[in-house]
């Protein structure tokens, strides 16, 4: 008797279809060897919200009886493999109020595997990934996070490559042939996708992570009140009105302490305060009320409540005043305004570094126009990087030679 449990941690809506494909693929691959399985999304995440971290699960077992031990659950207690399809989730996830910041490897079983799609190195990633009490393996598929939306899907082979990698990690449950067969049978499958799976299998990079490695910060958490401590009538206190920032000037709204929302963010606004024309548009158009008004009439995005939608960049009339930059370029949620007024030249240099790096400012965040995903995939083919069969996005050099 044996069973295999896997979670996919992903960005709500942006990667909903991707996660569903992966989990179905796991069960259908295992079925090839006569195993039983279930695939399900964490019920509390549904209905999902764009960007808010969500989870899907796949569990396969030798027998139906063994499978039953894992059914009628929202979330397994531990998983053999944690699949993370957006490396900005390595900073941890906060899906609900009172849920706290949960490390990406929280459910990964000792000596289990954290499988990520990322262009970062393990060393870079482990700056963000929280320390774990037990050793585990970090396996990487070199790829950018695959984002699309509910109706139009980005066929960049990510699901196939992850399934191929899983065959390497859990050969006992998913043979590479079974995975490739299941991929070809899938409504989204193809021979080329099966080839992607084989390549991912061959070239999966994995390294052990010691208990000494990782981000040492203690993630914030909450204790839920008892029934008699809760207010009656399904009522909770309102949020107090905010206060001036200092000396009776500016304004800082009070914010809900139990849900911070920043783990929803994949890109954050970097603001060039010297270019700001104080038009107020970023502040007034922000759906998350995340801008503090500074005493000198500038606007400072609070990095605990900013969810990175990018509307502020879209509405800003001043050229290069607001630039959205990928989250992995940052270490903390410190106030940019405070940095700027403390040491302007240092801030200008810091900001310059952030917005200079090409791969940090490129945006693929869902549908903008027809044919966009095909174009992006073509670019990825051309960017290439590692030698591999033609036609497979993300890690392709041969494509460039044609």
């Amino acid at each position, binding site marked *: 008797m044996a069973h295999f449990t896997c979670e996919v941690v992903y960005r709500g809506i942006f990667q909903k279809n991707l996660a569903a494909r992966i989990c179905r693929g796991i069960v259908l691959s295992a079925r090839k060897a006569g195993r039983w399985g279930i695939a399900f999304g964490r019920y509390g995440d549904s209905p999902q919200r*764009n960007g808010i971290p969500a989870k899907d699960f796949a569990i396969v077992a030798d027998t139906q009886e063994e499978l039953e031990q894992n059914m009628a659950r929202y979330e397994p207690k531990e998983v053999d493999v944690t699949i993370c399809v957006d490396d900005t989730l390595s900073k941890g996830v906060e899906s609900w*109020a009172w849920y706290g910041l949960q490390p990406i490897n929280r459910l990964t079983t000792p000596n289990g595997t954290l499988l990520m799609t990322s262009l970062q190195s393990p060393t870079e990633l482990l700056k963000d990934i929280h320390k774990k009490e037990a050793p585990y393996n970090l396996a990487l598929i070199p790829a950018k996070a695959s984002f699309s939306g509910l109706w139009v899907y980005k066929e960049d082979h990510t699901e196939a490559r992850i399934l191929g990698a899983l065959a390497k990690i859990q050969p006992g449950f998913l043979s590479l042939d079974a995975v490739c067969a299941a991929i070809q049978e899938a409504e989204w499958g193809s021979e080329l996708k099966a080839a992607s799976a084989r390549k991912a299998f061959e070239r999966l990079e994995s390294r052990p992570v010691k208990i000494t490695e990782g981000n040492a910060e203690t993630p914030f958490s909450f204790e839920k009140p008892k029934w008699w401590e809760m207010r009656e009538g399904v009522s909770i206190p309102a*949020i107090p009105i905010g206060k001036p920032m200092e000396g009776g000037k500016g304004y800082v709204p009070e914010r809900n302490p139990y*849900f911070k929302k920043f783990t929803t963010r994949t890109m954050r606004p970097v603001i060039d305060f010297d270019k700001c024309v104080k038009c107020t548009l970023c502040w*007034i158009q922000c759906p*998350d009320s995340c801008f503090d008004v500074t005493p000198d009439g500038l606007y400072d995005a609070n990095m605990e409540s900013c969810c990175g*939608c990018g509307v502020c960049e879209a509405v800003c009339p001043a050229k290069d005043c607001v630039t959205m930059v990928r989250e992995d370029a940052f270490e903390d949620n410190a106030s940019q305004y405070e940095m700027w007024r403390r040491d302007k030249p240092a801030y200008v240099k810091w900001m310059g570094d952030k917005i200079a790096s090409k791969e940090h400012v490129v945006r693929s965040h869902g549908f*903008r126009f027809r044919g966009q995903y095909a174009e992006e995939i073509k670019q990825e083919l051309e960017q290439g990087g590692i030698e591999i069969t033609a036609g497979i996005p993300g890690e392709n050099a041969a494509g460039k030679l044609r």
Partner: protein
Amino acid sequence: MAEAFANATQILEPFRGVKKVTIEEYFTSGHRTCQGCESALVMKLMVKAAGPRTIVLGATGCMYVANTTYYTTPWVVPWMHTQLGSSGSAALGTAAGLKALMKKGKMKSEPINVIAFCGDGGGADMGLGAISATLTHKEYNSLILMYDNESYANTDIQLSGSTPYGANTTFSPPGTLKRIIHTRWKKNMAGMLAAGHPECRYVATVDASYAVEMMNKVRKALSIGGPTFIHSLDPCPKGWDYDPMLSHELGELAVECGVFPLYEVEDGVVRHYGKTKAIVEGRPRKPVREYLLKQGRFAHFTEEDLEYFQSKVDEMWDKWEIPGVIPFRRAAAGK
């Protein structure tokens, strides 16, 4: 004995320019809405316009489930949930309760804004009857605001009576045999309610991409007295399927393409405003394809579908007695 009671409203003068907008937030962070959620923005602007002496009632929908989950409230002003079809009843009941207590001297007499909001599912579908009833109770001051993201966005994007023709939803998926499942044209809520409730003093359409105008419509609706209605079109990155960064742009395109006309009906007088006014005065509309092709929910549209959509929008402007407001036209002379 009861102190003198006046059924007065707060007089909220329009914000003269963006710099004059209230700095305080009465709807703040903490909600679990999508990146780029325009409806969350509408909530923020709505109470910014209304100010601190306001009670907000929220019908079931995204702005309840995503916006106000237990202990995750973003509300600074008092807020209460009401049932999906009950935005009208919630506004009426809250206003009536306050009025009774103030009239009878059981509560300090002061004008308190009562705002009930609903989504298009709660407003254009289930709650239409209750909204209609409330708009006939002229002695109770309240505002009903419908945030229209054009689907039951909270329950996984199912079509509502306010979903545009042909859009992809989980209840109207384009298939191999049928490309268009949803063949109904969107309800004309503001026009219908303005036309059907002669004693309702104020009905308006708004678009949060024009924040100051939007807030000023809310302020007028709250000041004028009696029950009022505002229809807000809210781009929805989740259900419309677009990069959240484009919420603001799509809000503008909806107006510039003439899909969503901006107007107010004040004491029976219709006024187009903003970019819609310019269109009425002859500025050409942008073709609707500029709006539709930026959204994944229309990715299955063929040229034929785009033309049909354009023709229906043209009709609204060229044939309607009052362009974009009421789908009436006079019979040709002698007919």
